[in-house]
């Protein structure tokens, strides 16, 4: 039995740990197109800012592969998967078709290749000093050129864009962000919450331009020196970061027979349409338990969980994925923000209750359907006990009995009926 994992992040680590709980003997191989020991991609903004040093970037300690008897193949890109011969075909990174033909056999395969940045066809996108912001090398390269950078334009004010802005401003780079939507963090927050975050960004000196887009990246020679917006406005800059979003990294399995929709479609065991081939993490399209639809939900906790479920099933276990839902925590300096579940309810049957204290930077919105919580937006001090709401969403606990207390800053177990409280606090979890 040979286990093969393509990818080397949260889902891969979860899979390795699960496989080794069931099977201590058979070989595990991890293939990565990066040169690094398993590390935390979300830390790249902290690395850029100087808040995290390189030795704190790793997700597992240096003995992780050795202790789990994992072979690693780094700096290689998988170009194809042959599901009939049970082989993957590798290329050296950046070598084009040279070196083609290196082949690795597998019995069980996990596709955990995550997401790749989406780059729209903006004129001038291939110029120097135009970066994306999802991996270690992005932060390292930006750091390398940063001493000659005074001004940056970030395209996209979503999660990745805000993390990039946080990193750039921390090292003294002036930032303008250009967002297509009417608000920042438009996919994670509602309008009122977004406005609080946008105000804090502006107070911190970031120029925020919404309802607009970059149509061209101009250059001097081949080096970016500015952008042109849809409304013809020009902004000079030395660096551009394209942070529009990520899409599942599925290009290399296009002709493999593995079913791909938006991501790699998986069942409740994280197995794809091809037997023995599994997918987990940002590349996978698994169940959203709140909408009952399959969709990629590219967040760290679900990647780790899905990796664990895939690994367990690959090695003879029978763990089942009960579904997940989107959630994210992002703090622009001074304004912590947490978004959980369905935050833009469409259709009938949703009820929304809101407490807006924008003047003090606090906001809380709760979304309910069929007497159950399905979503929450929290900004400012209200984030403190956010997880209780996450728990109520996950457990689908009826909340009607304490609905009027949900918006309280001090909402907690004393706000719930006694039997529910005792059930939650009185037993081993």
């Amino acid at each position, binding site marked *: 039995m040979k286990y093969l994992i393509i990818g080397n992040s*949260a889902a891969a680590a979860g899979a390795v740990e699960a496989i080794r709980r069931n099977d201590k003997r058979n070989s595990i191989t991890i293939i990565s197109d990066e040169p690094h020991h398993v590390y*935390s*991609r*979300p*830390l790249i903004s*902290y690395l850029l800012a100087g*808040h*995290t040093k390189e030795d*704190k970037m*790793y*997700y*597992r300690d240096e003995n992780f592969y050795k202790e789990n008897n994992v072979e690693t193949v780094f700096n290689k890109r998988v170009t194809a998967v042959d599901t009939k011969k049970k082989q993957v075909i590798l290329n050296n990174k950046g070598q084009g078709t040279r070196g083609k033909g290196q082949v690795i056999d597998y019995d069980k395969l996990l596709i955990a290749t995550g997401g790749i940045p989406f780059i729209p066809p903006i004129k001038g996108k291939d110029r120097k000093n135009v970066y994306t912001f999802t991996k270690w090398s992005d932060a390292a390269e930006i750091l390398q050129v940063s001493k000659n950078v005074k001004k940056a334009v970030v395209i996209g004010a979503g999660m990745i864009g805000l993390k990039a802005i946080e990193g750039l401003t921390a090292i003294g780079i002036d930032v303008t962000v250009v967002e297509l939507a009417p608000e920042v963090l438009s996919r994670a927050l509602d309008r009122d919450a977004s406005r609080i975050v946008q105000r804090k960004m502006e107070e911190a000196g970031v120029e925020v331009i919404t309802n607009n887009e970059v149509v061209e990246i101009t250059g001097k020679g081949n080096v970016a020196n500015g952008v042109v917006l849809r409304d013809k406005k020009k902004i000079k800059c030395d660096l551009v970061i394209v942070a529009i979003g990520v899409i599942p990294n599925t290009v290399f399995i296009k002709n493999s027979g593995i079913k791909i929709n938006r991501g790699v479609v998986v069942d409740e065991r994280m197995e794809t349409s091809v037997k023995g081939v599994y997918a987990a993490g940002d590349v996978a399209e698994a169940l959203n338990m709140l909408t009952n639809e399959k969709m990629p939900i590219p967040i*760290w*906790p679900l990647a*780790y*969980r899905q990796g664990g479920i895939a690994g367990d099933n690959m090695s003879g276990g029978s763990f089942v994925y009960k579904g997940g839902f989107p*959630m*994210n*925590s992002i*703090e622009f300096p*001074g304004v*912590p923000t*947490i978004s*959980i579940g369905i935050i833009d309810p469409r259709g009938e049957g949703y009820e929304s209750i809101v407490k807006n204290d924008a003047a003090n930077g606090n906001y809380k919105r709760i979304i309910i359907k069929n007497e159950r919580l399905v979503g929450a937006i929290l900004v400012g001090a209200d*984030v*403190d*006990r*956010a*997880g*209780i709401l*996450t*728990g*109520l969403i*996950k*457990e689908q606990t009826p909340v009607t009995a304490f609905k009027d207390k949900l918006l309280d800053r*001090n909402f*907690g*177990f*004393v*706000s719930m009926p006694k039997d529910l*409280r*005792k059930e*939650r*606090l*009185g*037993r*081993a*979890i």
Partner: protein
Amino acid sequence: MKIVYPKEEVCMACRLCEVACITEHSKSKDTLKAYKKENPAPLSRTLVEEIFPGLSVSVMCRHCSDAPCIEACFTSAMHRLALSEVEGKPDGRVIVNEPKCVGCWMCIMACPFGVIKRNQYIGEGQGDNPLNPPLLRGKGKGQEIKVKLSSKCDLCPDRSIPACVEACPNKALVHEERN
């Protein structure tokens, strides 16, 4: 494993568990110094929830067997201790590796008990309340002390009985194993 369970019927919201917790997790292990002098001073890792009058309960980490906070932590600061540092015995506590924590609050978002505390209290002597810490301390840009840190119950690794349990005058906190 043995964790701390609250008994709301005999809790009287005296908050001595919080005082004991802050003291235990201070450098000096002296209550007055912990509250008034230490910088940074710890936060209480248990929280007395209260509806006045008559209902209160002290809530802290359940050390879940399938812990959502560990899953959510992308730095691996939040982790399960496999073997205790003291005696090398099997353990199961969920604890924070503080130098690795970057204060992203993913654990706070994930914890269904809401028992992970945000930020480290940076005191400036008298007048600041450790239960309601300021966000930033220090003067001048770049001179601020890092206050972003997740704090949670570690079941007092230096004690056989956690400090909060020992401090409770009414036995409203018990240290035991349940199913």
